[in-house]
């Protein structure tokens, strides 16, 4: 993982000093609320329902055991002993005190962490594939270029006050696990015909109020030009993006208004002026950063799985976990492991300080002291020896981190919702829990198979409901909480935006609606067909009929 040199360290240290002074001036009445707001937001601090919420950056989802222990320490000392992993690979503390935030940032800086640009109308944390560097389908390791982008975007002076927030995701694998098409800029790294790393550039994707998939504005860009091309895109957006209406201020609205072709033309014209300038990435700089991301520490192991297979055969619980939570790896004898943060009864993505310490220990013992956060809000130990899987499983199970539900119905993506977030129209966590309780039979869950159910408490769509196979959105109707259900969303290379099935439901109806959708699928599926494929084959009609027929029946009983 990337390690700071004294230049990186000075930047985060100076940021702490700057924010400490800004907080002092705010508390002394020298800065108004309006003036302080963007300053605290660009340090990740929101004022929320109960208390401020602090969002700490986890660049492209990569953490070390040392960093995780520091996060556990912060949760204990400054918060209520737990924290929440977000859908953008960040971590959020829900109860810090505003006056303590400079001290928290200072603690973070001691382990090369920060909360820079985790909110505000600026370039946010760069996100990527949680299996970067280990996925067998990887073409280009996205992490070195993600780190180069992180540095470039940190305090970029021209783009600190954009019309609206700006999210960049990068992917370097055949299967897109970073959902690049729903980001303001999505970059896909690939090898071109000459064997060189090149980029496909998507612009103008996004969820929120106006969900849209991005448009590809360049099919081939040499990697050396990544920064200047992003600069050109951002300059066009900064100059012409709408600022008159916050709901229409994202770049997707500009791209749509101009048309992707015209937007691309303007970007190319701008880029011609700055192409080949000093921000052209040198081979030397690329190699410097790439040196931090290698699998050189891995041992030469056999990929013989006979012992592992025997354990699976004799221990059904272990086999179920292995089926859902263990993933293939580039290096023989190694596997990646997802630790589920989705046990029934816990808010999806929540983790206690004790669990953080425990996971840090597991990372040290089994995975080179590193781990990752996925946008599905789980933790990943990326490089575990095949021979260690059983011991790891036993340890994880003791701490509630081995629910065998990765990719299943109960592996719900869920925002904090109305229990915490001041933007929310409705609660989301209790809905997730009610669904998890309804589907608590593991055999049934495994029979249902791969499915993604995503929940957001409002149109801002932090829970990615638009790309859930089943999406649930909390809406406010005359002051009470209702839930809109959508069907047919999907992340990945063939991403799609789901469509709403009809009138919304009361909270207590939602688990029953999900059950009807699942039953329809089970009756209609062909062999080996997973939920989203059945939806795509049949369309919405049979699902919709079933759900609303049942609702009507219930009304007449």
């Amino acid at each position, binding site marked *: 993982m990337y*390690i*700071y*040199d*004294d*230049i*990186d*360290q*000075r*930047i985060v240290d*100076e*940021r702490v000093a*700057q924010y400490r002074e*800004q907080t002092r001036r705010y508390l002394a009445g020298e*800065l108004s609320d309006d*003036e302080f707001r*963007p*300053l605290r937001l660009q340090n990740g601090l929101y004022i929320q329902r109960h208390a401020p919420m602090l969002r700490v950056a986890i660049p492209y989802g990569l953490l070390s055991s040392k960093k995780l222990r520091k996060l556990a320490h912060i949760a204990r000392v400054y918060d209520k002993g737990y924290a929440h992993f977000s859908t953008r690979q960040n971590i959020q503390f829900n109860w810090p005190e505003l006056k303590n935030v400079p001290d928290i940032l200072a603690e973070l800086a001691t382990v090369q962490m920060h909360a820079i640009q985790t909110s505000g*109308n600026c370039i946010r944390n760069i996100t990527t594939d949680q299996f970067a560097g280990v996925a067998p389908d990887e073409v280009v390791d996205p992490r070195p270029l993600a780190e180069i982008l992180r*540095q*470039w*975007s*940190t*305090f*970029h*002076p*021209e*783009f*600190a*006050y*954009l*019309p609206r927030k700006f999210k960049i995701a990068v992917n370097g694998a055949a299967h897109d696990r970073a959902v690049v098409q729903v980001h303001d800029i999505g970059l896909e790294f690939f090898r071109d015909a000459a064997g060189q790393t090149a980029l496909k550039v998507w612009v103008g994707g996004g969820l929120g109020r106006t969900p849209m998939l991005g448009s590809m504005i360049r099919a081939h860009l040499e990697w050396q030009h990544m*920064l200047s091309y992003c600069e050109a895109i951002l*300059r066009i957006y*900064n*100059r*012409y993006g*709408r*600022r*008159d*209406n*916050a*709901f*229409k201020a994202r770049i997707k609205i500009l791209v749509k208004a101009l048309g992707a072709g015209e937007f691309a033309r303007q970007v190319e014209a701008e880029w011609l*002026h700055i192409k080949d*300038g*000093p*921000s052209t990435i*040198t081979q*030397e*700089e690329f*190699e*410097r*950063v790439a*040196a*931090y991301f290698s699998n050189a520490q891995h041992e030469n192991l056999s990929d013989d799985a006979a012992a592992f297979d025997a354990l699976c055969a004799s221990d059904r619980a272990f086999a179920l976990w292995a089926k859902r939570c263990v993933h293939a790896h580039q290096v023989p004898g190694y596997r990646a492991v997802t630790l589920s943060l989705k046990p029934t009864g816990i808010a999806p993505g929540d983790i206690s300080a004790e669990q953080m310490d425990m996971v840090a220990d597991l990372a040290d013992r089994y995975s080179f002291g590193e781990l990752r956060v996925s946008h599905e809000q789980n933790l990943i130990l990326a490089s575990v020896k095949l021979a260690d899987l059983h011991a790891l499983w036993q340890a994880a199970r003791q701490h509630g981190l081995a629910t065998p539900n990765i990719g299943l119905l109960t592996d719900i993506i869920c925002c904090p919702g109305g229990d915490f977030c001041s933007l929310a129209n409705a609660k989301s966590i209790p809905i997730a829990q009610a669904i998890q309780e309804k589907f608590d039979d593991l055999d049934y869950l495994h029979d249902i198979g791969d499915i993604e159910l995503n929940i957001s408490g409002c149109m801002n769509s932090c829970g990615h409901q638009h790309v859930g196979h089943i999406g649930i959105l909390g809406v406010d109707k005359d002051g009470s909480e209702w839930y809109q259900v959508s069907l047919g969303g999907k992340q990945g290379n063939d991403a799609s935006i789901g469509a709403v099935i009809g009138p919304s439901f009361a909270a207590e109806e939602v688990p029953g609606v999900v059950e009807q959708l699942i039953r329809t699928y089970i009756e209609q599926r062909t062999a080996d067909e997973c939920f989203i494929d059945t939806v795509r084959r049949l369309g919405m009609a049979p699902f919709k009929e079933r759900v609303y027929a049942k609702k009507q029946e219930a009304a007449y009983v």
Partner: protein
Amino acid sequence: MSNLIRNNVVVADDWTLVALPAIEEAVRKQAGKVVIFKLTGEHSATPEQIAGAVIPAGKVIVPLPLWQARMDELAPRLAAGELGVWLESFELVEDLVASVADINDVPLIAVNFPRFADGRGFSIATLLRTRYAYRNELRAIGDVLRDQLYYMKRCGFDAFSMRADRSAEDALASLRDFSEPYQGAVDNPLPVWRRYARHADTSGHARKAVNPVMDDTD
């Protein structure tokens, strides 16, 4: 006490800013909220307002539409080095450049920040300094606050007319918030990896960057 910072010191201001009378227009609303920011390319004044504006003697900074409409009358003052032009954040820098034979004939260009959160001024400044090679005074006016100064300086502003209720002396400190930025910008076009030889040290110890190859330009 002056509220003007120029080249990192507080100095007296010998320029007069000429503003057009505020346009009487109906309050616009979008999604139930009052529209604060104009769209890039919108007009800022009516022909009557421009024609009727009174321009005092001495060194003046006039709005772009006034300069464009009354160029014949104002050209001698420009030639004498006593006429600057200011841009609204929503006006196009290209329009200013097209209105003069040489952008460096203009002794002073000011960019208005109607609210500090309107970041278009950063791109206007960057384009003036890089694309159009503007070398004279570039001044930030309007809602200019110390917490944005460092970014303004990096984008090429060398003068800051601080908001009247704030101390320019206090603000000077914020020009030095960071000592080594990552990316190139107007004040130093080189990204950090071209300024220093940085070496990967994967042993886990932070390592000193060595060999500065270029000093910070002002």
